[in-house]
C-alpha cells in the first residue's frame, strides 16, 4: 500500500497532498523535490529515475503535463502497480477537469481531494474508473478556458484549427455539462502510432518499430456496446518469420502485429474470426489496444546528411530531408537536430532559395544545430507537405583543428514530427458500430489517425 500521494508543480509547490497512513515523515515532498531536481548518482548528474529510495522511504513519480505525481511507501511494493496507479490518477483527473495542468488543478483541488479519497483508502487502491467514481463524487469541475492552453499529448494536434475536427473535444470534461446543459453524443477513436527508426550512415534501415495505441474517449450516454472492426488481414505474432526481416517488401501483404494487449473492457470473442473488438466503453479516456510492429514499413521521411571538412578550421554540413508520403498530407512540428563537434564556435546557415519561414539555430550551450521547417508563411507550426524535399547547408567554424574523423565528433541527426491522418502501419478501423437505442440515435464518431516520431535518427 502507498503511504502518501502528492502532486507538485514544476517549481516544487504542493498542489495536492494526501497522507493515507502517517508512516512517512512530513517533509517528504521537499526531500523528494530536492532529490529529483539535483539528481546525482555515482558522481554523475542525470535524470532521476521514476523510483528511488531515500532513508527507507520509496518515492515513485510520473511526469504528466509538467506536473509531478508522486507516491511514497515504506513497504516493498510492485513498482508497476504504483506507477500505473499514478498515471491512472492523472487520467481520472483529466477526465474530470477536461484539461490537466497546474492552473486547472489549483482551481479544482477540492474536487481532486474528493477523487483521491475514493480512489485510495488507507493506502489501498479502491477504484480508478471514472465511471464508478461518478457516483461518489459531488464537486463540479471548474472548467478552465481551453483555447489559451496548448494541451499535451498526441491527440492535441487535432486542435489546430482543422475544420474537420471539433476543436474542444479532447479537452472536454467527461462529467461536466456543456453550456446550455446539453451533452453532445460523440465518441473519439484515435489511432496513435509512434515510430522508432534508425538509419545507418548509408541510409539503410537498421531498426524500426511502430508502437501503436487505439485510444478511445466516449461521451455517449447509457454506455452502448461498440464494435470496432480492424483490417481483415491483420495477424498477430511473428511465428515462422524471423524478427527484423526486411527482405519482405514494404507495401504488400498483411499487417502483422508482433504483439498486442487490450483494455479489460474489451471482449475478444470474435476477434480471431473477423478481427472485431467488442466493448462497452467506460466513461473517460482509455487505451482500447496497444500494439507493437517490427514488420518493415515505409518510413515517412528520408534524411541524407553530409559532413565535409573545408580547410583546417572549417567544415560544411548538408542535411537533406524528403517527405515520402502523399502531397495531401502535411507533417507538423517538424524539427531536425544535430549535435556538432564540441569545438564548434560559429555556424552560418544557408537555405534553399525560395524556402519560407524556416528557422535555424545553433544552440551554443549544447553544441547543437536546430532546424525547424515551415510549410508556408501562414502556418503557426513547422510543417512539411508530402513529397517535398528540403535542404539545409551549414558552415561550421572551429576553434581548433579536428582530428581527422569529423563524423565521429558530430551527429547523429534526429528528427521530431507529427503527421495527422497518416499511419505507417496501415492498421485501420474499418468501421465503428454503436448499438442503437433508437432510429434517431446517431452520435458523432470520430476516427482519427496520427503518427509521431518517437526516436527518428539518421547516423552520419
Amino acid at each position, binding site marked *: 500500500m502507498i503511504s502518501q500521494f502528492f502532486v507538485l508543480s514544476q*517549481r516544487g509547490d504542493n498542489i495536492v497532498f494526501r497522507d493515507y497512513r502517517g508512516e512517512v515523515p512530513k517533509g517528504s515532498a521537499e526531500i523528494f523535490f530536492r532529490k529529483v531536481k539535483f539528481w546525482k548518482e555515482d558522481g554523475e548528474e542525470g535524470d532521476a529515475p521514476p*523510483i528511488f529510495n531515500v532513508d527507507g522511504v520509496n518515492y515513485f513519480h510520473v511526469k504528466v503535463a509538467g506536473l509531478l505525481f508522486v507516491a511514497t511507501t515504506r513497504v*516493498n511494493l510492485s513498482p508497476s502497480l504504483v506507477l500505473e496507479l499514478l498515471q491512472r490518477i492523472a487520467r481520472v483527473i483529466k477526465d474530470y477537469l477536461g484539461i490537466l495542468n497546474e492552473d486547472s488543478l489549483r482551481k479544482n483541488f477540492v474536487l481532486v481531494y474528493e477523487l483521491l479519497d475514493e480512489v485510495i483508502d488507507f493506502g489501498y487502491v479502491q477504484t480508478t474508473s471514472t465511471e464508478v467514481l461518478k457516483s461518489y463524487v459531488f464537486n463540479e469541475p471548474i472548467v478552465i478556458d481551453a483555447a489559451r492552453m496548448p494541451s499535451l499529448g498526441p491527440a492535441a494536434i487535432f486542435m489546430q484549427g482543422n475544420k474537420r475536427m471539433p476543436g474542444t473535444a479532447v479537452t472536454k470534461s467527461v462529467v461536466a455539462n456543456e453550456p446550455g446543459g446539453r451533452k453532445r453524443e460523440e465518441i473519439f477513436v484515435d489511432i496513435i502510432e509512434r515510430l522508432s527508426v534508425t538509419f545507418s550512415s548509408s541510409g539503410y534501415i537498421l531498426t524500426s518499430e511502430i508502437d501503436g495505441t487505439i485510444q478511445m474517449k466516449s461521451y455517449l450516454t447509457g454506455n452502448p456496446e461498440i464494435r470496432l472492426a480492424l483490417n481483415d488481414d491483420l495477424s498477430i505474432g511473428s511465428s515462422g518469420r524471423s524478427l527484423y526481416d526486411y527482405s519482405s517488401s514494404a507495401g504488400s501483404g498483411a499487417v502483422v502485429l508482433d504483439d498486442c494487449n487490450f483494455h*479489460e473492457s474489451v471482449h475478444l470473442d470474435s476477434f480471431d474470426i473477423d478481427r472485431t473488438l467488442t466493448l462497452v466503453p467506460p466513461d473517460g479516456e482509455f487505451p482500447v489496444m496497444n500494439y507493437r510492429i517490427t514488420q518493415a514499413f515505409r518510413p515517412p521521411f528520408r534524411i541524407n546528411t553530409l559532413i565535409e571538412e573545408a580547410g583546417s578550421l572549417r567544415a560544411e554540413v548538408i542535411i537533406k530531408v524528403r517527405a515520402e508520403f502523399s502531397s495531401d498530407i502535411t507533417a507538423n512540428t517538424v524539427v531536425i537536430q544535430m549535435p556538432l563537434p564540441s569545438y564548434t564556435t560559429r555556424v552560418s546557415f544557408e537555405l534553399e532559395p525560395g524556402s519560407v519561414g524556416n528557422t535555424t539555430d545553433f544552440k551554443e550551450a549544447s553544441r547543437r544545430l536546430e532546424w525547424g521547417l515551415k510549410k508556408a508563411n501562414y502556418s503557426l507550426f513547422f510543417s512539411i507537405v508530402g513529397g517535398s524535399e528540403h535542404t539545409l547547408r551549414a558552415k561550421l567554424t572551429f576553434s581548433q583543428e579536428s582530428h581527422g574523423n569529423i563524423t565521429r565528433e558530430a551527429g547523429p541527426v534526429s528528427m521530431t514530427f507529427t503527421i495527422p491522418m497518416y499511419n505507417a502501419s496501415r492498421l485501420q478501423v474499418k468501421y465503428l458500430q454503436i448499438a442503437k437505442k433508437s432510429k434517431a440515435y446517431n452520435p458523432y464518431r470520430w476516427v482519427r489517425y496520427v503518427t509521431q516520431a518517437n*526516436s527518428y535518427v539518421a547516423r552520419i
Partner: protein
Amino acid sequence: MPRPSHPSRFPSSPSPSPSQPSGKGEVSDLKLQLRQLAGSRAPGTDDSKRDLFKKVISYMTVGIDVSSLFSEMVMCSATADIVLKKMCYLYVGNYAKVNPDLALLTINFLQKDCKDDDPMIRGLALRSLCSLRVANLVEYLVGPLGLGLKDANGYVRMVAVIGVLKLYHISASTCVDADFPTMLKHLMLNDPDSQVVANCLTALQEIWSAEATNSEEASKEREALLSKPVIYYLLNRLKEFNEWAQCTMLDMVAKYVPSDSNEIFDIMNLLEDRLQHANGAVVLGTVKVFLQLTLSMTDVHQQVYERIKAPLLTLTSSGSPEQSYAVLSHLHLLVMRAPILFASDYKHFYCQYNEPSYVKKLKLEMLTAVANASNTYEIVTELCEYAANVDIPIARESIRAVGKIALQQYDVNAIVDRLLQFLEMEKDYVTAEALVLVKDLLRKYPQWSHDCIAVVGNISSKNVQEPKAKAALIWMLGEYAQDMTDAPYVLESLVENWDEEHSSEVRLHLLTAVMKCFFRRAPEMQKTLGAALAAGLSDFHQDVHDRALFYYRLLKYDVATAERVVNPPKQAVSVFADTQSNEVKDRIFDEFNSLSVVYQKPSYMFIDKEHRGVFEFSEELGNLSIGVESADNIVAAQIVGATDNDLLLSTEEKEESTVSSSNGSAYSAPLYGGSSLASSLSQSELAVSSSITPANPSPTGLSLDDLLGLVSSPAPAPSSSPPSLKLNPKAAMDPATFQQKWRQLPISLSQEFFVNPQGLVALMTPQILLRHMQGQSIHCAASGGQAPNFKFFFFAQKAEEPSMYLVECVINSSSSKAQVKIKADDKSTAEAFLAMFQSALSTFGMP
C-alpha cells in the same frame, strides 16, 4: 450546482504559495468569518461556507497550520450539503490526531451520519470516523464498524472493511476482541461485492501477519489464506475484480504451492489471458505466478520465458516512460538470468537517443549479457556508435560494455580492433576507458599483447589523467617493458613527477611497474628505480610507503628472489569475478514484481524491519536476524566457502586483490578478513571431528566451548540415550532455500516441553544456544526475539543423505516452555530427530 464566487482568491495563480506570516493573520480572519456563518440559516450560507472551507483546505495543503479553526469547522459542519461535509471530513481527519480533545467534538455528528439514510453519507462518515487515529476514541468505533460490516450497501461494507484495518492500527486488541477478523473472513468468502472481498483480503493479510508473531492461531489463519479452497475461490472470481484487486490476488497465487503439475497447468491456463492485459502490474503479477509455479519444471519454465517475452516487450514500448522503465527492469532481471533465451531479441535493447540515462544503462547491460557468437558483431557495432555519444556517462558505459563483451567471447579479433580505434579517437574519456579495458583484455588474452602494445605505445602519458586509466597504462608499461622501447623513459618522467601524482593507486602501480621494468632492462632503469624507491619511502601514504620499503628490502636480500615475488610468470585470467553472488540474485528473483528488482537488491537491504512485506515468511525471517549476519562466527560451514568470502569484500577491494595478485606484486589483500573467520574455520574442523563420534557428542561440545573460552560447557548428557540418527555436521542451507522449503513442507511433528532453568539463564545470550546446537550438528538459519519470547529456526541434515530437517523453536523464558515444530523431508525419521533435538536442548546450560 453553484460555483464558488471568488475562485481567484484561492492560491490558483502560479504565484508562490501564501507565505507564513500573512497566513497567520488570515487564519484568525477565517476563524471570525466561520464563526459568523456557524449559526446562520440564511440562504446562500452553504455557498459562503464552501468558499471558506476551500480556503482552509488550500492552506492545509501548502502546510499552514489551520488546526486552530477546529471547533469553528466542526460547528459549521452541521449541514446537508455533501460537498461541505466531505471538506469537513478531510479537515477533521488531518487534525484530529494532534487535537484529540477536540476530536471528541466530531464523534457526535459522525456517529449520527453513520446512521443516515443515504448510504453515501453512511460510508463517508464511517471512513472519517475511522480515520481520526485517536487512541482514546476507539470505543466509539466498534459499534458503527459492526453495523457497517453488515450494511446492505456494498459501498458502506467496503469502507467498513478498511475501517477495521484502521482500527487495528489504532488499537489491535480492541479490533481482535471485537472479533472483527472473523467477520472479515466470513465476508471474504461470501460477499457478492468484489471490492468488499478484495478489501477483506488486504485487511486480513495485514492483520494476521502482524498478529502472527505473538499468536499461534493467527499464523495458522494466515497460512489458511494460502490454502487451496481460498486460492481456488479467488481464482474463480478473479475476473469480477478490478485490475488492482487482481494484482493483490495474483500476488497471493504466486505464493501458493500446488500439489501436482495438473494443478499448475490449470492455474496457468486460467491466467493465460491476463498476459494480454494493458495494465503492466497485472501482467507482471501473472508473470510472477508463472515463473514461481514452474520453478521445478525446467522445460516448462523455459517455455514460460518464451511466452512472456512478447507481452513484456510490448509493455516496455507502450505507456509512459516511467511505466516502461518498471517493466524494463524486470525484463533486465530475466535477461540476466537467461541471456541465451533473449539472444535473438537484441535489437530491442538498442538505446534510443532520447531515452533517459537510467534506461540506457539497463539496456547496455542487457546488450552485454545477450551477446553471443552470432550477434556480437552487430551489437559491438551499435555500441561503438554510442561511444561517440554526446552523453558522456553513456559513452563511457558503452565502451565498458564493449570491453565486457570482449572478455566473455572467445573470438575477440574484431573487438580488439574496435577498442584500439577508441584509443585513436583522442577524446580524453574514451581513451581513459579504453586503456582500462585493454589492460583487462591483456590479462585474459596475453596473445594480443603485440597489437595492443603498438597502439598503447603511441599514447602520451600526459594525455591520460584519470587515475584508473593512468594505473592501467603504467601497468602495461611495466608488464610489457620489453616490447615498448621507450617504457623506461616514460616511467622515468612519471617518477620525476612523483609529487604531482595525487592518486595513491597510481603511485602503487608505478612502484611495481618500475620494479618489473628494472628486472628486464636493468641498465636503463637503475637510476629510476632508486628515485622511485626513495620517493616511495618518503611517501605519506602508508600503503605506498610499505610497498616501497618491502621492495627495497626484497632487493637488498636477493634480486632474483625479488623478481620471483614481484614478477612471476602469470596465468591468464579466465573469469573475472561477478559482482553479485548467486544467492543475492536468487533472492531478487524470488521478489519478482517488487522494488527489489528495480533497485537490484533484496528487500532486506532497503526496507526497514517493521515494514518488510506484509505476508511473507521471508518477512518473518527478515524480522529475525539472518543467520549469516547475526550468528557471526557460529555458522562456520556456511561462510567459509571461497565465493561467499568474496562477498565480504566490497567490489572495489575485490578488484584490487585480483589486480594485485595477477600483477604478481607482493601486495596482497588479506584473504581471510578477521579472527572470526579463523575461529570459524577451526570450529568447522571440530565439527568434523564430532561426526566421527556422533554417538557421544559431549567431547566435541566441551572442546568447542573451551576453544571459545565460554564459561558454561555442556555436560555429557547422561539422561538422554545416544540418538541413533547421524547428522551431517557441515550441513549448509541459505536462508532463501530454507524459506522456500519451510513453505513447501508440511509439519511432521510438533511438541512442547520444558527447558531447564540453567538453560533459561544461559538464554540471556541467545548466541550461546546457537553455538551449543551447532555442536550437536544442528545449525541455525535465523534467530531473533526478545525476552520472554525467543524464536529460532534451525536446520540439520542426515549424514550422507540429502534429507533435511527444519525446526521452528519458540522458547518462552517466563513459562520455561519450548515449542518445537519439525518439518522433515523424511518423515519416518522425524521422531528420532525430535528426540535428538530435545536431548540437545535439554543439555543446554548444564554445567
